[in-house]
């Protein structure tokens, strides 16, 4: 299971900005280990952010997203104190969900 994310969400003029920092190796599948063997690809492939059961962002990553991926997005319709949840899934079937309160 993946490690926890850091999620910060803040609202200004009706727009909620969500900043998510994920913990993931994002192994490209192109790197060789010390013995010269290719390290298999291991990446987050899918992402989803939700607010009150409604999806506010969906995304997909390829191997070129940096290790410990970082994402910022903005949506309307939330209020201070609401919660935003964020979930990722990787190509090994692992997944992780965390949530944060909008400040």
């Amino acid at each position, binding site marked *: 299971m993946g490690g926890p994310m*850091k999620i910060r969400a803040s609202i200004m003029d009706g727009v909620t900005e969500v900043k998510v920092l994920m913990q993931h190796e994002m192994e490209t599948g192109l790197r060789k280990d010390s013995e010269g063997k290719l390290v298999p690809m291991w990446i987050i492939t899918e992402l989803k952010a939700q607010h009150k059961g409604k999806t506010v962002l969906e995304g997909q*990553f390829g*191997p*070129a997203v*940096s*290790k410990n991926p970082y*994402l910022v*997005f903005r949506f309307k319709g939330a209020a201070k104190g609401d919660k935003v949840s964020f*979930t990722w899934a990787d190509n090994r*079937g692992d997944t992780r969900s965390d949530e944060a309160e909008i400040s």
Partner: protein
Amino acid sequence: MKQEMNLNRRKALKTGGGLGLLGLLGAVGLLGPGLARAEWKKDAFEAKTLDEALAALGVIAPENSAAIHLSVPEIAENGAVVPVTVASSLSRIEQISILVDKNPNLLAAHFVFPEGTQGFVTTRVKMGQTAMVIALVKAEGKFYRVSKEVKVTAGGCGG
């Protein structure tokens, strides 16, 4: 503020344990309709040329647009982390894709924006060498494209 962050950390660590089961459920497709349904765009992510990537993403005749703003550093001190922001004043952005023209696989990330979510995204990508970063935007059914060069430099002593 710091206090609060620490509390959140503790909480994140604690709830982490409980997600083991959820993790398993997710793996068999029970997590929720969104993640299980949205197929990873394998063809697009494995595309080796821009034409292949555009075709796999279903992009037709993208136009250049001044309404798309792509923010990248002119020089990246390290190719492992290149910050990319795509923003647009166009109404009803549906999708944003970020590509790097000289990477082995061009497509780095692809985002879908439901109604109410703004046409804005920041993320960080890897670049093997100096190359063009390309943002593809779909708004009201039409495709737009903007690109900028990022110089990836050798850093440090290099030994």
